[in-house]
């Protein structure tokens, strides 16, 4: 067991996959000698060389597009998109090509491309550096989307993404890059399946589902609620596509109340999808409507007001109050 940050855990995960499989390669902007703007690929260029840690031209469609070609020729590319808001020049390649190639080829071709995207706000940054566009990708069949919330998951999920035959987008909670935790580099243990949700804290009165950067917030809200005498179960979703509805539904059948929290705008978001599925699967267990806590229907606001935009402990507690009032 080693203690490290999420950023370091991803770095170690990438180092492991580069060491274990000669066909893995990393590509992205500034990921070489600089080690990426968040230093997630720090040291890997020196260790594995320019053919395997590829500094690319500044062109996201080109990065994803060439990664598809590399995958077709038998390689396992891991692309870094520098910031969430800069993925859109590559959106066409991801949604019309990467996601559809396996189906288009009647299963003859696989394109095991991994795309790493640092996402989310709370870092006081300028426009396009704080977004949560996961729902736009979750809506596209053919993609898988996972998001770690702690170093142990970060270490294993990046490797599991590379091992997966399907294209996988790994959304990395950038404001948690420096969050420390224990990593067991010997065995994934409970994290063996990256597409399974984890119950992080058991409770009986309500369930809070969160993922990525909001997982620590949800846990803190559950702690605060406990002081008021409410027993709150917290689920780390981990996988956004597919969603582990079994774990969520089982929890709701027990607690009868569900809050879903994410930074992305609630409209058309993952929370709505979870609410709909849970109402289909556990309608008679619900004591209250499913409540979503998320961003507003606006472009991500300027840094000086982002605290009013981002869901925090109080916003989750307010939602819990509403749910418990039924």
């Amino acid at each position, binding site marked *: 067991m080693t203690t490290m940050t999420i950023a370091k855990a991803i770095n170690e995960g990438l180092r492991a996959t580069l060491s274990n499989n*000669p066909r893995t*390669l990393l590509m992205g902007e500034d990921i070489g000698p600089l080690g990426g703007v968040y230093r997630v690929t720090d040291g890997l260029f020196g260790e594995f060389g320019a*053919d395997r840690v590829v500094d*690319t*031209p500044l*062109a996201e*469609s*080109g990065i*994803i*597009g*060439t*990664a*598809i*070609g*590399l*995958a*077709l*020729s*038998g*390689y396992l*590319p891991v692309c870094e998109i520098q910031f969430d808001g800069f993925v859109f*020049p590559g959106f*066409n*390649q991801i949604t*019309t*090509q990467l996601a*559809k190639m*396996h*189906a*288009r*080829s*009647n*299963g*003859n*071709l*696989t394109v*095991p491309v991994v795309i790493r995207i640092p996402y989310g706000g709370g870092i006081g940054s300028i426009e396009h550096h704080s977004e949560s566009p996961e729902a736009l990708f979750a809506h596209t*069949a*053919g993609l*898988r989307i996972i998001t770690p919330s702690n170093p142990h998951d970060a270490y294993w999920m990046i490797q599991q993404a590379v091992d*997966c*035959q*399907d294209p996988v987008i790994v959304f990395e909670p950038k404001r948690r890059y420096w969050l420390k935790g224990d990593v067991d580099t010997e065995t994934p243990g409970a994290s063996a399946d990256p*597409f399974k949700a984890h119950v992080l804290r058991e409770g009986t009165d309500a369930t809070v589902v969160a993922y990525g950067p909001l997982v620590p917030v949800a846990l803190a809200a559950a702690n605060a609620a406990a002081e008021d005498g409410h027993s709150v179960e917290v689920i780390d979703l981990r996988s956004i*596509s*597919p*969603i*582990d*509805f*079994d774990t969520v539904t089982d929890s709701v059948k027990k607690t009868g109340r569900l809050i879903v929290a994410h930074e992305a705008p609630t409209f058309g978001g993952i929370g709505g999808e979870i609410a709909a599925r849970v109402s289909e699967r556990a309608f008679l267990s619900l004591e209250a409507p499913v409540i979503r806590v998320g961003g507003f229907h606006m472009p991500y606001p300027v840094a000086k007001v982002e605290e009013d935009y981002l869901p925090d402990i109080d916003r989750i507690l307010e939602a819990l109050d509403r749910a418990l009032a039924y």
Partner: protein
Amino acid sequence: MGATHLPATEFDGTGVDDQLEAEAEAVLGEPPTRMVQLLGPDGTLGEDPVFSAYARRLDADKLRGFYADMAAIRRFDQEATALQRQGQLALWVPLTGQEAAQIGSGRASQPQDYIFPTYREHGVALTRNVDLAELLRQFRGVSNGGWNPKETNFHLYTLVLAAQTPHAVGYAMGIQRDQKLAAANATPGQPQEPKAAVMVYFGDGASSEGDVHESMVFASSYNAPVVFFCQNNHWAISVPSTVQTRVPLADRAKGYGFPGIRVDGNDVIAVHAVTEWALERAREGKSPVLIEAFTYRVGAHTTADDPTKYRGSDEEALWRAKDPLERLEKYLRVEGLADDAFFAKVKADGDELAAYVRKTTHDLETPDIRTAFANTYAEAHPLVAEELAWFEEYSAGFADEAHADEADTDGVANR
């Protein structure tokens, strides 16, 4: 504003000294782009300082083969158009006029090369041994990609214009790494795998897409073994190529730092020569190459298009006079390389191909939607499994109804 306001002449050009301008252009101006042509429209073979050497590699068999291929694919094109008119295909994308560009380039490729087409490259598909009836699956609506690219190294058609160009560069980057790895692990005296390159097709319309630019930047940066083959057929549906570019498309290669070459796309011998040169260059790791095949889409963009609304018949007539098949036929006859019997055989073979395609198209099996469930992901997926289970149950309900109907009528009415 005052001081920062520039004189109007800076903007409207009225203050430009015409004399100075002409002198500047004389110094700065590039020589007009050369178009490589070996076989002229009149069927006579000309000389080219570089590419005649490549043309001399072609024996009579090869030249007759080019003709047979071009005739076959034109016949196929006519048959597919007819099948669309008869409602057997949802849409057809005709290639007539572009046979030389496609057969010449396709025949210059080697089996180990990997080809990325757009969606009009039926002629290239023929040279890569794709079953032409299989190729129609996409247009009949029974598949989004009718063949297995691994068997022919001919990728699936890509309908989002230019999206395949970065795929080609990435594939070439893979080949580059394969070759480095092979060289590192080579045992002296053991035969090496033949070197490979990638060729990617796109058109004058797609040349405006950003993906073409990004691919060329990547190709140049990594010196990827890739040949960009642009068929400038002059029309992107209804918009002329002059709207896509003010310079010959081949000239754009200069900006990326690799050779660009314009070739008469209706001259199969020149196309073959230029492509062979380009692919050899790419395989040897010298540089990417852009080829612009100057040709013409004689027919419509698709069977849903009406060219009379945007171009004159005089223009079409001008290009028909440059027909790629007619000029090769003239050459073969004058040189005594092919006789009436050969051309009669080509025609008979074409009719046979058409009959095969017609019959096979009718027989193309409609897939079960369960294959779409199965092929969305390569690995098991709970949502797909759940929706499939629902669909099975839902469908089973209709099966019960069908049985009930049969029972009601004592089995008399069979649906």
